[in-house]
């Protein structure tokens, strides 16, 4: 019995037993060959009239309680879809359901491409599909696919259809039809006709609906991509749409900015940047796209525009937007020491809480190594006592859990300044609270810098080290005073609480872990090597050993958290909140 026959019989039996979809899942995960054979088997089962595969897949659900992965089951159907002989409306109902059930997953739209292929395979299907979308509002998501599929058969006719539907009273049809104008397939080697652009221009002047305007923006950019000569007109179109549009339009703009950053001409980029500043923080996906866009700008040498946009968004929504919304941009900053220095100097010196918090995230983004930023003289400007002190205190206030980074910034300031007064003040801050609180990492860093430093900076660092030595030796001179130690009961109570807290954090982290969600777990009670018996291609068992390793991390907490928590908290709050008039 061939592989296909085996799968066919298994699926047939499962269908009769009412377990068809789980059987598809089993076949999809049981090996590459089986997985690749499933679509053909499905086509055969359906087209030979064994049972209605389309109807069977319409039962597929996606939810947290489902036992089997939705996409593993949907994928064979997608591959089978173009070859199925089934009524268009039925297929559309099934595809629309499977598209919606996928939710916001990045793979949700892959089935729509297969639907296009399905429509392309029969000349009447696009027409039937368009008719079905007009008749049934639940199928509107498939209009774009139907028009695109049709345009591969007869571009002129289906462009006409798109223009017709662009004048429809139904917003859902209108917006998809206009979007389709940019996506239609023209005759081989031919650019889209000027009329396509004119259609958009005509509509944008009359249109007030935000969703439709979003479609116009997407279409305009598509036309520009197909013909760069349309750059100015497409830019003007996008500007007009954005001027009237709101959240949907901004989202469409963010998609262009986020995913096609490198292809956007300068003039269009300026238009996008102007309007994207209006994005409201509730639109997470739009913000997410903007994050991608900023990240691309930062990595492609247009850091100034990227930082400006990031700054403006953070400042416009200090409560709702934080650096965590821009994790890609932050990662991009971290990749360049020069950019890190520039951004940290600029934002700490501005002193705004939202920017400083974002600066903190930049420093904290490198989990595996300390960041050693230095001030950027171009951003810092004139050597002034007030600026240096302000920046140093902001660095302490916001980066307090990254002592080496603070020390690095302060040492670079000490090196930069020509003023004795400024140097003394910075050295004092470097000792207290930085080295005083972190006798390990910060002190080690300062000592290493001291060795390579020269001149007044070396002298200042020497003073810091002397102060730290004196402070430590004074504390060490006290020795052990058991009278002051907490009682055994108190120690146990504290340790128990700490263990509980760590355990809860661990469980939470595990539950959110992407890695752990992808693998199965097995618990080894003893030993430091895991032994497995694996079956090889020749069906023989092969013994393998996997040595186990322990993973750990450590962090140094500021001592003031323990010995003077209230004072420390107050100081940090003052440092974080103080402002100055430049």
């Amino acid at each position, binding site marked *: 019995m061939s592989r296909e026959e085996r799968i066919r019989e298994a699926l047939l039996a499962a269908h009769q037993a009412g377990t068809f979809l789980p059987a598809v899942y089993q076949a999809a995960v049981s090996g590459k060959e089986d997985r690749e054979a499933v679509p053909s088997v499905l086509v055969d089962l359906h087209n030979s009239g064994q049972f209605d595969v389309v109807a069977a897949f319409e039962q597929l659900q996606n939810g947290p309680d489902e036992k089997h992965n939705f996409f593993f089951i949907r994928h064979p159907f997608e591959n089978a879809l173009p070859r199925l002989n089934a009524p268009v409306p039925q297929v559309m109902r099934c595809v629309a359901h499977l598209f919606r059930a996928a939710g916001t997953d990045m793979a949700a739209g892959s089935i729509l491409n297969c639907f296009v292929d399905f429509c392309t395979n029969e000349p009447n299907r696009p027409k039937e599909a368009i008719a079905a979308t007009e008749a049934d509002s639940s199928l509107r998501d498939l209009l774009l696919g139907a028009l695109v599929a049709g345009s591969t058969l007869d571009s002129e006719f289906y462009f006409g259809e798109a223009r017709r539907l662009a004048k429809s009273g139904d917003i859902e049809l209108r917006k998809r039809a206009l979007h389709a104008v940019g996506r239609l397939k023209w005759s081989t080697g031919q650019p889209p006709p000027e009329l396509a652009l004119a259609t958009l221009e005509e509509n944008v002047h009359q249109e007030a609906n935000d969703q439709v305007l979003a479609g116009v923006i997407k279409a305009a950019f598509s036309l520009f991509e197909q013909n760069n000569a349309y750059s100015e007109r497409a830019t003007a179109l996008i500007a007009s749409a954005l001027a009237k549009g709101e959240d949907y339009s901004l989202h469409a703009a963010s998609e262009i900015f986020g995913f096609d950053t490198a292809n956007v001409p300068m003039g269009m980029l300026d238009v996008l940047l102007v309007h994207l500043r209006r994005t409201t923080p509730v639109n997470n996906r739009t913000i997410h796209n903007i994050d991608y866009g900023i990240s691309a700008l930062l990595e492609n040498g247009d850091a100034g525009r990227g930082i400006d946009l990031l700054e403006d968004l953070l400042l416009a929504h200090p409560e709702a937007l934080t650096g965590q919304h821009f994790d890609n941009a932050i990662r991009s900053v971290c990749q360049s020491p020069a950019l890190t220095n520039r951004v940290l100097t600029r934002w700490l010196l501005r002193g705004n809480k939202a920017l400083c918090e974002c600066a903190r995230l930049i420093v904290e983004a490198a989990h595996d190594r300390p960041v050693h930023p230095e001030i950027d003289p171009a951003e810092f400007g004139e050597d002034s006592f007030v600026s240096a002190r302000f920046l140093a205190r902001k660095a302490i206030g916001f980066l307090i859990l990254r002592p080496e980074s603070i020390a690095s910034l302060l040492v670079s300031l000490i090196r930069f300044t020509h003023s004795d007064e400024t140097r003394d003040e910075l050295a004092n801050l470097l000792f207290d609270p930085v080295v005083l609180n972190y006798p390990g990492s910060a002190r080690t860093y300062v000592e290493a810098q001291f060795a390579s430093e020269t001149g007044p900076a070396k002298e200042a660092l020497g003073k810091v080290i002397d102060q730290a030595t004196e402070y430590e030796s004074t504390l060490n001179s*006290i020795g052990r005073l*058991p*009278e*002051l130690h*907490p009682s055994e*009961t108190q*120690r146990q109570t504290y340790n128990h609480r700490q263990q509980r807290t760590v355990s809860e954090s661990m469980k939470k982290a595990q539950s959110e872990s992407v890695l752990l969600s992808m693998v199965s777990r097995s618990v080894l009670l003893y030993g430091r090597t895991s032994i497995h018996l694996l079956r090889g291609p020749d069906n023989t068992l092969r013994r393998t050993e996997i040595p186990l390793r322990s993973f750990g991390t450590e962090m140094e907490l500021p001592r003031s958290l*323990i010995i*003077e928590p209230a004072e420390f*908290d107050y100081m940090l709050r003052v440092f974080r909140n103080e402002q100055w008039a430049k």
Partner: protein
Amino acid sequence: MKLILREYLASLRERGELDVVLPDLLSQMGLNVFSRPGRGTRQDGVDVAAVGAVDGEAEKVYLFSIKPGNLTRKDWNSDAVQSLRPSLDEILDAYIPSRLPAEHRGKPIVICICVGGDIQEQLRPPIKGFTEQAEAKHPGITFQEWNGDRLAGLIQDHFLREDLLPERARSHLRKSLAMLDEPDTAYKHFKNLARKLGATEGNTDAQNLTALRQIGICLSIVFAWARDTGNLEAAYRSAEIALLHGWKIASTYFDRQSKLNLAIAEALTSLIMTYRHVSDDYLTKVVLPHVDKRHGLSSAVRSQSALDVNLRLFDVLGRLAMTGLWTYWEANKLAGQDESRIPLSRCEVCMTAITHLLNNNPVLRLPVKDDQVIEVSLALLLLSLDPRFVPFAKSWLKAMVDQCSFAYTTHGGYPCILGAYDELLEHPDKGNAEYRRNATAGSVLYPMMALWAALFDADDLYEQIQTFKAKDLEHCNFQLWFPDGSSEEHLYTNSELHGATLSPVPVDLPKDEFLKHVFAECEATPHFDELSANRYGFWPIVAVACRHHRLPIPVQLFRVFRKPGPSDAAAEAQA
């Protein structure tokens, strides 16, 4: 038990230790002690002198020359002032001929070489030679060796034997000694011992006297062992509870005629001396050398928890203030009576130490528990006794008020009424307004701060507390505690709830009216003044009781700082 006692005796120092234990032992043996050690003076070689019969022998005069630890060649005869042989010569040549009280002349005399440990074997020949010569030269005078072994036997026979100290109580003592490395446990056993000894119902006067002396000797044993262990914590807490139970026994004798009054007073004095000795040693070892070091004591707590640092540092503050108050009390009580009186400058040492402690340990600017008002009150009370320290006290009070209100507003570690350690570890529940409201449902700390602000004439500070109350603490029941009629019965031993609480304390009143209102309550009942510790002039014992049993320091102790206000003048004029 005898081994325990020998260890204990061998570790005693002469001054304030062995010479304190010995008279109590002799008294307990039935001898009449007619000379006790005085501070700074030597009585021609005699440290302690007693008369009476020992072991059924005839009545004799016993003259003790005391040396701590083992007697070595250096201790026997050298240029050192404390050498034994010169002391014995002085006894023979000076004390017996000229200072022995007339009523005891003609009685047989026994000169006792008293050592806490042993006499080294190589010293026996010279000592034997000396004593034989002296006995031959001075008929009626004999010599005896009272070494650690003999003293241990006598202590066991006269203090700790079964009929005097039941096995269960002895067991508490042994457990307390065994657990000195775990101060909580050691203290728990000592407290049980003190309670047992302090349960005097149905006792005869002699039994009460014995119990008082037993408390003293047991405390002394714990102290000596704790010192050897290198951890005085259990000894400190045991000293407080011993003092309080001792006072409870002794205080009933001051008002009545008893043949044993003098002996009771001596035993109490001895107990107070031991208590003071323990607290002085504690401060000398643990606190005073380190108060001037930045973060010194805070770091020495060696905990990962800020709560531990807070609790311990406020505790240290209270102990330091308590010692200062005792020193102040002694200086005033003994002023003009005794050339060995403690100069007030020692009190200043404590005050200065407090300023260093507060400056170098910022954790003391924010109490985490409302009942730390006790330590705050003791420190303010002490500092206020010297006008030079009042500005500092004011600034500290201001810093506390600032931090309390800031911590409250920001859901930081604001003072709360929680008591259990595990609850305090969870404090504060950040951002939970309902929790904060419950955790600050009542307070003695804030009204006490208001009282001190008013006493200091710090109008701004008083208004700051008024505003804090009106704006944030409207739900908080401001209150002050006063002793009531049952306090005398329960204050020292914490046997029952007692006292009365004045609430709400009206900090919304103008300062003078507030003071008038609070101090009017002081005058409304006589209970505070009628506490035995106050009646007999031992007011620091009230403070010790309050600190130890976690009761607020009574406001009456602060009356002395009140300046007459306009309302008083008006009232006077009206009168």
